[in-house]
């Protein structure tokens, strides 16, 4: 749509096209996340200036990577649903329920249970089931995922509170925390874990039928259906998969703090969504992938780390986050691709 208001943007895009003609531009376009990499660079630059280099110190970088692991896993989970063109707000609920069940099933100081390593499949199962319900509500009952997952989130969070009776459950099983805080070649193991997950999803998205089909659905559900894509089945399985990954994140949260409580589910959703958007995954679906999720999370976490290092007033931080979110998206979204902006 051409109007005087968007003309500046046209200039921008013409400039884009000019750039893309050049060799640099070719490189820029050959990398799917070049825009995000640049924004990360900017963030790094600003903070390393603001903290006279401390920001880029190895120890800090490792801290950032370590801290980015769990948000990254959550972001990798939720971005799958976003690619479908749907929305998933059940993140906090599912994490809460899995966190609590992990707390109660592992060796702890409240119950007599000790399932040991079995916890991993168990939390993934719980999360997966919850995700499955999301999928069914969306496909079989044809409810908009935004609201159905919101309802699920409330429901599951409530259940988590019920079974934990609200109190926090200290763990007696230290193995998991050991894994979390251990390092491999100086790199936090948990970060490597997240990256591996990212890799798996990347392959899934690009090398398997499921991946191809989920992009097809994100592009245009009806046409995908016409072409014979089993839309419902794919959607349900993606929601399920997402739920499983939430479960994993829930377990890691518990392991990290070596105790468990329903409230560990709080304050996780919006950071994840921010990471998704900053990473350049189109909220209208069909565009972006695991790479975007990874880089997006790193940007967001690095940002928060930098704000602390620079001793920015805690209550300015949400504003800075907001501004960065908006400007990062403003710079990186390709408006020609999303068409109408809603």
């Amino acid at each position: 749509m051409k109007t005087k208001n968007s003309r500046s943007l046209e200039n921008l895009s013409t400039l884009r096209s000019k750039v893309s003609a050049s060799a640099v531009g070719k490189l820029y376009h050959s990398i799917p996340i070049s825009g995000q990499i640049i924004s990360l660079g900017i963030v790094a630059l600003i903070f390393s200036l603001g903290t006279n280099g401390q920001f880029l110190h190895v120890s800090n970088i490792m801290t950032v990577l370590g801290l980015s692991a769990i948000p990254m896993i959550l972001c990798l989970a939720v971005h799958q649903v976003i690619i479908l063109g749907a929305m998933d707000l059940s993140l906090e609920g599912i994490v809460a329920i899995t966190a609590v069940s992990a707390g109660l099933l592992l060796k702890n100081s409240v119950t007599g249970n000790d399932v040991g390593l079995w916890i991993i499949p168990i939390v993934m199962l719980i999360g997966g089931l919850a995700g499955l319900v999301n999928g069914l509500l969306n496909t079989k009952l044809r409810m908009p995922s935004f609201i159905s997952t919101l309802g699920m989130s409330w429901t599951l969070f409530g259940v988590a509170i019920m079974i934990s009776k609200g109190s926090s459950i200290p763990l007696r099983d230290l193995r998991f925390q050991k894994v979390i805080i251990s390092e491999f070649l100086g790199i936090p193991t948990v970060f490597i874990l997240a990256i591996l997950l990212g890799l798996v999803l990347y392959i899934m998205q690009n090398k398997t039928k499921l991946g191809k089909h989920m992009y097809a659905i994100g592009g245009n559900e009806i046409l995908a259906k016409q072409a014979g894509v089993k839309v419902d089945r794919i959607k349900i399985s993606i929601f399920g998969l997402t739920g499983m990954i939430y479960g994993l994140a829930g377990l890691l949260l518990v392991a990290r703090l070596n105790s468990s409580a329903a409230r560990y589910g709080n304050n996780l959703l919006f950071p994840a969504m921010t990471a998704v958007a900053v990473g350049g995954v189109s909220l209208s679906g069909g565009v972006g992938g695991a790479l975007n999720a990874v880089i997006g999370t790193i940007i967001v976490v690095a940002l928060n780390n930098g704000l602390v290092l620079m001793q920015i007033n805690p209550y300015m931080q949400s504003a800075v986050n907001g501004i960065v979110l908006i400007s990062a998206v403003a710079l990186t979204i390709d408006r020609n691709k999303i068409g109408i902006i809603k």
Partner: protein
Amino acid sequence: MHKDGIGKQPAIKQIRGKLAGLPAISYALGMLVLFIVIFAVGSATFLTRYNMLTIGNSAAILLAVAMGQVFAILTGGIDLSVGGIMSLVSVVLMKTLEPLGFWAYPLSLAVGIAAGFLNGLINSRFRIPSFITTLGSNGIFMSIAYMISIKPLSAPSSSFGVLDIVNGTTLGIRNIMLLGVIIFVLFFVIQRYTITGRNIMLLGSNEKMSWLSGVDIFKVRTIAFTLSGFGAALAGVMLASNLYSGYPTLGTVYILNSIASVVIGGTAMTGGAGGVLNTLVGVMVMSVINNGMNIIGIDVYAQQSFLGVLVIIAVAISFDRSKLSVIK
């Protein structure tokens, strides 16, 4: 819905099929009546005067936010910053109550409107999806509130009189409820009987066409979000006066609640369908559920789950699928 070839008729669709022809809103109304009956049977005290006043009070506030929210949603967007706006407004009100007296009200409303206008501007001029825009600006508004005051501000007893404009009662009905009615009528008229309202519907159902037909989509979008800001501001003022206080997290819970009530009312999140009347019903459903749970004495641990389940059920029944070929 048949020609798009999405799946075979789901069970829920068949139920609706029997009641076919009824406007989407009737389902939401059905829900409302159903819940009222359940709670009334569940507890004799549900339908008492005192309790109705309680429901009315909370409904009035939620209504104000939702009335704004629905305009954002009608354009096909969403406003996640209503919480931030409410908080900011509440803080401004409490801060200015002493010096300005009554005039603190118009001032704080103006602040909210400005905030909404800002959203609209960013969304339309810089063409950034409203989800991102408002998600970001929400944080910004909260921070501004914090800058104004980190401590929660309480109303000085000297200005209780002013606050009783909202808190007082007329003919045994809380003024805040009358306010709610006025707000509803106002937004209803805006949507149904003004050109802007019509253009917002147009925009929501076909943006390209409305532009080609001379609708200034940038202006209309901006107005829609400004209205959303206005609604949030009204809610913020009402809530702040209700609580005799304002603080930077006051509105947070209203973000998702307002969206939920809009959707329960049967407004499509893709825009162009539904509206203010639907939202009124959605709001009533939410408020009745929230109050009823305490009245019939649902165990405190279970309440949140209960709410979640009821919301899912409500939407499953009331959501109007006929408008949409694809449910996202």
